């Protein structure tokens, strides 16, 4: 068995066992990806087909629409990730501190909503966010508070805040400021959808965390929050990284939620891809947008891999140093 693992050239058995999934995924995952990339270097013709080889598609991407949409997508995904993590950390902490029996009950009940169809849950939200509902009233209060908070700032600062999505661009008008068909609805329901995917990895990391470390820190005089920040957060960082990826990546690719709840106010890359691919049949543009999306997903993944590698090498170096110190001290002991 072990010799097999070191064989450099695949033998017949290996080909036979690998072939089904390999060929399937090569044909239906790798080849399509190449086709998408190839289509971006084509123009489009009027009948919705793919035209000659050209760079016109990439040139057309400077269309003022597209950079704004990419920026919006990144900003909203970031916002959704931030809210999910902020809510997930205390939840994971609370679950990890429970007795094992309660842990499995609560962890299970966090995943239970997923037994209802995703589309149906979004539909339920759509009905809840109806302009006559009580959530709309809450939203108006929220907008008023925000207006009051930022209204006194100079105009250029307000503009910057609008660009960041923190402030609204105009005065609050109850007739037009509906929570349905707004960015707020998209963020709210995205957090609702992705939150369990943030809680689970953090909880898995927190479960392994040794909570007596926190008590030790407190005994040494650390304040509660200081101990939490300096001991607990670094202790669960692996879970935090996977939680960020679990939320950020699907948020970038999100298309159903903005389509059903965002109205015309909130169009993300996903919606634009769907529009270009299905509705107005501009295949090269859809391909180019998909390529942009793939790049914006690969960057955080690459970063996290690089970070993990660095952490690993740092841990290894620390271990080596400790070992060296231990060895030298024992040798010194031997000399004495």
């Amino acid at each position, binding site marked *: *068995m072990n010799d097999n693992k070191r064989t450099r050239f695949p033998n017949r058995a290996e080909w036979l066992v*690998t072939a*089904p*999934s390999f060929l399937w*995924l090569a044909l239906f995952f*790798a080849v399509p990806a190449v086709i998408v990339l190839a289509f971006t270097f084509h123009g489009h013709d009027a009948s919705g087909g793919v035209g000659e080889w050209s760079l016109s598609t990439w040139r057309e991407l400077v269309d003022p629409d597209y950079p704004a949409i990419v920026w919006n997508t990144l900003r909203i995904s970031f916002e959704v990730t931030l809210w999910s993590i902020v809510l997930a950390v205390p939840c994971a*902490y*609370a679950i990890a501190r429970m007795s094992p029996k309660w842990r499995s009950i609560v962890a299970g009940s966090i995943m239970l909503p997923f037994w209802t169809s995703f589309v149906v849950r979004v539909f339920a939200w759509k009905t809840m966010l109806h302009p006559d509902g009580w959530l709309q009233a809450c939203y108006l209060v929220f907008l008023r508070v925000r207006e009051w908070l930022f209204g006194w700032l100079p105009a250029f600062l307000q503009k910057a805040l609008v660009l960041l999505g923190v402030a609204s661009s105009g005065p609050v008008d109850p007739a037009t400021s509906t929570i349905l068909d707004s960015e707020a609805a998209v963020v709210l329901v995205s957090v609702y959808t992705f939150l369990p995917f943030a809680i689970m990895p953090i909880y898995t990391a927190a479960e392994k965390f040794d909570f007596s470390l926190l008590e030790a820190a407190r005994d040494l005089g650390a304040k509660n929050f200081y101990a939490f920040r300096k001991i607990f957060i670094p202790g669960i960082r692996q879970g935090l990284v996977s939680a960020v990826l679990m939320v950020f990546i699907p948020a970038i690719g999100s298309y159903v939620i903005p389509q059903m709840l965002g109205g015309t106010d909130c169009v993300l890359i996903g919606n634009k891809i769907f529009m270009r*691919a299905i509705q107005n049949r501009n295949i090269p543009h859809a391909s180019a947008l998909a390529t942009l999306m793939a790049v914006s*997903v690969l960057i955080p993944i690459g970063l996290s891999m690089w970070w993990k590698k660095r952490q690993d090498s740092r841990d290894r170096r620390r271990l080596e140093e400790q070992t060296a110190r231990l060895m030298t001290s024992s040798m010194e002991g031997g000399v004495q």
Partner: protein
Amino acid sequence: MKRSMFSVFVLSAVLAFLYVPIILVVAYGFVPNGIAMTFFASDGSFLGFTGKWYGYIFGGHHAVRALLESFWLSLIVAGISTLVSCVLGTTSALALHKWRGRLQSIHHALVYTPLIMPDILIGISLLMLFVACGVECGFWTILIAHVTFCVSYVTMTVLARLADFDDRITEAAYDLGAGPWYAFFHVQLPILLPGIVAGGLLAFTLSIDDVVITSFVNGAGTNTFPTYVSSMTKHSRNLPSVFALSTLMLIFTCVLVGLSKLITGRTQSKRK
């Protein structure tokens, strides 16, 4: 211990946040006014609950025929793609577990990348493939797409099970004169079965719930349950029937999970 109280408070709020829509899904199944989705008449009086949407579903009423058809299509697609992806995923996991050559590192990349890519990219790239080959989108393209995104999940689940697998057991089977096929079907497969079943369940749930990929490759007129629901505008008169059907599905899943818990619990206590 102040922080602990705070985190418990956040946890309760989050649980409420997660459950309110589910409770409403159940409630909306009994709404009498299917257009405005409300329990109240225009003068504010309470109209009460109605069971007529459940009647429509069980009676196969013509108003919900398209919905029920899309639901059956979803079940068929999920069933077939689960079976196919279980076979592909199991062979894939076996190959990845047993060999460590260059072929397997490419294989691993092929299996792993679909897991970290947003669904929509799988959808659009498959659509591009079908466009490039001139294939008409319909039932078969949906099936291909579902198998494609399910395989990786099954592989990962089976691979996790294989990590705990003691390779010496198969070696013992070989030593006792079993051929590779016999050893696989009589020794390895029974041990791996729980992992394959878990992967299959995951594939089934993902397939029956998928809307993003399906909406790219379904073509005109072929709708699974999720794409049909998302295509229903807010002016649909039969929206409560969607919620009623979802409630039935929820009850069904709960019963199923409860039963499986009961059975595993019983076998575990038997073993003790």
